């Protein structure tokens, strides 16, 4: 996240005993905490999804549109590819390509979030409101917090992308930010794979 990507700007090597830049290490440490965040959310959903909420109760699982969600999942996975391309373009010193792939990643992320908005809208039209039963609450909370993480990722990507439009493009220190946002972005993708399998596919 933006605040995590900040620290000593050009710390020399002896400063980092682990050999990993402090900011990168910080991101890894932060992400290890995020795993438990999503772990607790996934656990909630798995706990509540099978509960019997009485006759006529509506469950998220009845409304899944697997082909649709598969496509949006594919889009999110592809955004990991474009993220890698952005990073490797920067490593080559190709600022133009970096800019392109950063925008592409943000765009694919936006497509995914729009898909989620659409899905939520459909579900609510079918009567699956946030507070209809705990299964629905847990579903919305899990996917909603994931979506929020994607939105934050898009924000960070856009900040970097717009910075890369300046003459001269991204500085070396900002280059590390690309890597950090990349780490975060891949994490958010990995979490989505787990959610997609556990929540959507295994019913």
């Amino acid at each position, binding site marked *: *996240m933006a605040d995590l990507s900040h620290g*000593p*700007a050009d710390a*020399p090597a002896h400063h980092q005993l682990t050999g990993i830049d402090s*900011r990168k290490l910080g991101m890894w440490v*932060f992400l*290890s905490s995020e795993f438990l965040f999503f772990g*607790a959310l996934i656990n909630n959903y798995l706990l509540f999804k099978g509960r019997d*909420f009485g006759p006529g109760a509506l469950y998220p699982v009845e409304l899944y549109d697997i082909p649709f969600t598969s496509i949006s999942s594919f889009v999110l996975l592809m955004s990991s590819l474009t993220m890698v391309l952005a990073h490797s373009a920067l490593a080559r010193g190709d600022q133009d390509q970096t800019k392109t792939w950063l925008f592409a990643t943000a765009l694919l992320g936006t497509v995914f979030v729009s898909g989620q908005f659409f899905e939520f809208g459909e579900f609510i039209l079918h009567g699956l409101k946030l507070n209809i039963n705990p299964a629905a*609450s847990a579903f919305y909370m899990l996917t909603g917090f994931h979506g929020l993480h994607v939105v934050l990722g898009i924000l960070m990507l856009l900040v970097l992308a717009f910075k890369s439009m300046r003459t001269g493009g991204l500085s070396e220190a900002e280059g590390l930010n690309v890597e950090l946002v990349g780490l975060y972005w891949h994490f958010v993708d990995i979490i989505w794979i787990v959610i997609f399998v556990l929540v959507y596919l295994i019913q």
Partner: protein
Amino acid sequence: MAIDVASDTVERAETTLFRRPRLTYGFWSWITTADHKKIGLMYGYTAFIFFLAGGIEALLLRIQLAGPDGAFLTAAEYNGLFTTHAVTMIFLFVMPISAAFFNYLLPLMIGARDVAFPRMNAVSFWIFLFGGLFIYSSLIFGTSPPPVGGSLPGGATDASILGSIPNSGWFIYAPNSGATYSPGTAVDYAALGLQILGVASLISAVNFIVTILNMRAKGMRLLRMPVFVWMTLVVALLLLFSLPIIAIALFMLTFDRQFGTLFFVAEAGGDPILWQHLFWLFGHPEVYILILPAMGIVSETLPVFSKKPLFGYPAVVFAGAAIAFLGFGVWAHHMFSSGIPTVAQAAFGLSTMTIAIPTGIKIFNWLGTVWGGRVRLTTPMLFSLGFVALFVIGGLSGVTHAVVPSDWQQTDTYYIVAHFHYVLFGGALFGLFAGIYYWFPKVWGRMYNEALGKWHFWLMFIGMNLTFGPMHWLGLQGMVRRTWVYPEEAGLGAGNFVVTVGAFVIAVGVLVFMINWSYSKRRGRVAPNDPWDARTLEWTIPSPTPEYNFAVEPTVTSLDDFWHLKYDEDGEGRAVRKEKADELVDDLIHSNGNPDHEIHLPAPSYFPFIVGFGIMLIAYGIMYHTRPYGIPLLVAGAFLTVGALVAWGSEPLEEVHDEDHGDRGGDLDGEDEAAEPALSEGDV
């Protein structure tokens, strides 16, 4: 020295139009500082003010309970006070004052000029401060109407001021914390406030872990770190892995209360027991988060005041890590009476008992450290020994809770209250006071008054045992917790009176401490260079600590490196002070106080303060989202927070300083210019 830093400031002011705040004194220097020492002091002062608030709450509770059928407080006020007392002492006192020690000492002990992310360190503090203010603002804004089907005395529609602060226990158990049984905002202030404090702790946990892993002095391998640094690392890891769980639980509670979800509403298929699992999955590691810093402190003071190395250093370190690891596997011992399966009860009873093993290892190692040492009974040593003694009592009564049938008898009685006050007051607080006295000369460059310090110790020690000792008996006689009166026929009056007297003895002790502190920090005897004949790096620099910590980057060749500079071993393994020890120490400290080049320090910033303030506004916005001003507050808070973060993250990273001083000071100077235009951007 400081002059170098100042001249550096002037130079930069000429090179940039908009510059970051650079004052090194006065009000704004504190608001914008990124110096770990200033942040540490702010943590300390804030925590102490909250400690006084929590203490006053405790005294009010004790006045109410001094005799049978007390009429000093109403039931609602009692609920508010005991809850806020706990929330304050745990989240607003012990955790932040531990953070004060981490902040001030961690870089000094590992030989660094600051933490890995100085401004993130500042943001942790500001988020904590605004989170604490948020919780206490419930005194002004909080409401607590009677629950559905309940009533308040005299048919009132809202509890009094003291009844409207967070009032459902620090554990905020469902379903009592749900909208049905706790209407009004009292629980929201607790849930959202703890969420904010969690963000602060998470950020500082990341910061400390990276600092310890990446920024140790040359030669300081992991097993050459002072035990206090080890315990900081362990606590940070505990925070890292337990906070996300309570974050989710608090989000669920907030959703239940604000958006009508049904997570904890049993009649709609929700699961109140799930709250208990999630809460204690965080809550039990939390108690180690509270005690391990104090254990780290006494592991520093006991060797110094016994003139011996810490007995079994690796065992103490690994025992600390083992306590943390096992701490994640014992949470359900808080839930023996909640109807969880028998097998689970047996398993959690056993796992709880295993915690006694690493704890016992630590106790015996501390005793082994003191044994045969040349013991100096200074105030910090008295507090350290008091810590060991009282913690043993609290630890042993803890083991009795691990025995499930016995725990059924003790649940919700004062026996439990006695137990956790022996470990948290007798343990954590005594350890923290030991640290406050031990590092007093480091921070202020002056000595505290030893006589007043001893008065403080004995008042606290006697008061503590008078207060919490009789609670064991009261509890076993069946006196229930969280109940505002007890009848005369119960025969609990005498014991409770003693408890109340003890509480006031403690209060006098704290008063003595405050007098000693405020007098000695200005007028105390000037502290010698190495007042305690210490063993760790923070004593190899002048006192009070210079802004840049170390003028010369330290190199470490062994555990207790500073000690080995001063002492040799004789043929029988006894420590013998070197003839030239005094000279060596003076030379070292002199060279550390006189840098021969400019040292760049972390630049101050406005943004951490703004982020903290913005997050508080977001919390108000969520709580009052149904009111007309709720959403504007939420939007304003989000703008401030995101704007400040973007501005902060967008500051140009160009380096101005030249590379010729390749010391570690230079790189802390992260970013150099143009904070002001970005500020206005974030200030929308």
